[in-house]
């Protein structure tokens, strides 16, 4: 545990699971909030020292600390590289759920213009967990669907932590049908722990809504691309992820059940999530090897949250490349998509 508050070194406490949150923020960095994962502790310590030294020099300390700072910065970069060199599946799950990781709203804001959100399933309600709308991607009209988890308590509650209810999936179907009608390609951004398990959701047909959404997505006549940007959790994810091209961010995960869920069902012990994450093969690298996805989008050193610009750039390039590839093919988009999914697993 790093030192006490007020000594200049960020004071850490355990937030939830394995995320450290800095409660005391130095003045120079007052606009930022640091979140470190368990395995990033060496980095956290070094960055803490750097912040302390910077503060000292700003306060006009007698000693010249510039050399020391640059030395520490190098060490901290090395520590980061070491930590991210070979992430385990469980560590990747943590990075995929990192509170600072760019979310759906960030990708929409960065990659799209003229974003026009549309609301409601025309039957029951509006669901903020699943964002839907039309926009322009590199000038071209696109439909966009994606789960948004929210970034602070208020927005997390508003977006229900990215766990959609039937209304969300029915709204998605509405947008897909509209995209089809107007011949507009679709981009979906997947980031959800899963569809919401609640009384109301069940009452209003969560399963049926997901099944219809998967079916609508598979049946699109227009090309579609799906990117798993964080967590691809089970049916709630696949409902919008049956695309002509499916990409995953380097440290994102995609699985049939959360590692915690699998641990509690298969091991009867929810603390075995680490084993479940390893055995279930949930990483982008595993999925590419099994030919479940079409490509991996590389993340900057230390994960997408440490280089927002870089990840936006990379995601934008990959989406554009995907649409170009699809445009070159002569195959009907719907048949291409269906045949692609039917082929999954047949060559293993």
């Amino acid at each position, binding site marked *: 545990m790093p030192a006490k508050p007020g000594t200049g070194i960020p004071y850490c406490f355990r937030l939830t699971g394995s995320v450290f949150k800095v409660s005391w923020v130095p003045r120079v960095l007052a606009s930022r909030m640091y979140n470190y994962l368990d395995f990033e502790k060496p980095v956290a310590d070094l960055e803490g020292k750097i912040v302390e030294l910077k503060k000292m020099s700003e306060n006009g300390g007698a000693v010249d600390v510039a050399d020391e700072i640059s030395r520490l910065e190098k060490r901290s970069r090395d520590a980061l590289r070491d930590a991210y060199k070979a992430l385990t599946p469980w560590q990747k799950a943590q990075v995929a759920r990192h509170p600072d990781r760019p979310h759906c709203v960030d990708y929409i804001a960065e990659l799209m213009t003229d974003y026009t959100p549309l609301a409601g399933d025309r039957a029951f309600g509006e669901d903020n967990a699943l964002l839907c709308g039309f926009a322009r991607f590199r000038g071209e009209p696109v439909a966009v669907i994606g789960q948004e988890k929210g970034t602070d308590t208020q927005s997390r509650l508003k977006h229900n932590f990215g766990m959609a209810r039937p209304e969300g999936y029915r709204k998605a179907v509405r947008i897909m049908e509209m995209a089809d009608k107007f011949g507009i390609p679709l981009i979906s951004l997947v980031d959800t722990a899963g569809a919401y398990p609640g009384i109301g959701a069940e009452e209003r047909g969560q399963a049926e809504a997901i099944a219809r959404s998967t079916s609508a997505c598979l049946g699109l006549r227009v090309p579609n691309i799906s990117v798993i940007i964080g967590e691809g959790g089970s049916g709630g994810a696949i409902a919008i992820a049956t695309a002509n091209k499916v990409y995953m961010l380097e440290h994102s995960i995609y699985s049939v059940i959360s590692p915690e869920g699998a641990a509690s069902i298969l091991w009867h012990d929810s603390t075995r999530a680490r084993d479940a994450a390893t*055995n279930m093969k949930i990483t982008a690298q595993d999925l590419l090897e099994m030919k479940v996805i079409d490509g991996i989008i590389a993340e900057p050193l230390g994960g997408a949250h440490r280089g927002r610009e870089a990840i936006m750039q990379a995601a934008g390039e990959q989406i554009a490349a995907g649409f170009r590839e699809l445009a070159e093919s002569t195959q009907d988009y719907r048949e291409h998509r269906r045949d692609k*999914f039917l082929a999954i697993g047949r060559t293993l």
Partner: protein
Amino acid sequence: MNWITNYVRPKINSMLGRRDMPDNLWIKDPDSGEMIFHKDLEENQFVVPSSGHHMKIKGKERLRFLFDEGHYETLENPKVAVDPLRFRDEKRYIDRLKENRAKTGMEDTIINATGEIDGLPVAVTVQDFSFMGGSLGMAAGDAIIRGFENAVEKKLPLVLFAASGGARMQEGILSLMQLARTTVAVDRLKEAGLPYIVVLTNPTTGGVTASYAMLGDVHIAEPGALIGFAGPRVIEQTIREKLPEGFQRAEYLMEHGMVDMVVSRLDMKATLGRLLRILMKQPPGTVIDPEALPAAASDEAPTPAHA
């Protein structure tokens, strides 16, 4: 619960318990606690005569009661990669598969059959809960796809009896992919203009409801069947509330517009025959008297068709 369980000390109780009849001869009705002789239960399609409780029924039994004279042909299921993840939890997945194959005599959970219901040729797919809880993995996924493709080829309506706890977690993401793959098969059957009827039986939950089991033209449920996306325990843990009475049961789903009808197993054949003949634009068939069902003990092994 009878008076013995309440008044006899646990140790004595367990000694008494051991002297009970072997459980394969007498079966206990979970509703009333009544003991039913297995032959009586079997003759009544595993529906408890007094309470109407629907017990689980094996896929083969289901088919025998469903088809005219109990005659049907089965399709050979496609071969799939076995245990591609080399998965192990408390046990190796491959060992679980072996155990379940030995226990059930089935390769996996799906049987595809064709035969006649009320004189009308029909493709039927049944999911057998006794094989790893009817869980949906690659083998089941490919078998379901095969069943649908066969129906399209032969221009047959398809009836699917769902029974499953959901996706087979031991196959990881590949089991999740079966949601998409089976949905493709359903959509192609629908595009061919052929009726698709789903019969939801106890239990049908998880990924299975989130794909082919909720995409029917008509949804029929057996009385009391548990049907839902998230399991009741997961919901209870999430919302930390007690669930309402009858939550996620067949009758509740009908009330909430998710199923068209709740039909007793004893009336299933008649209902399916009547409905399919209408949807296939055929003249009315014979009225089936539920009393005159095929005899229970025809042990003839159906011959597989290699179509």
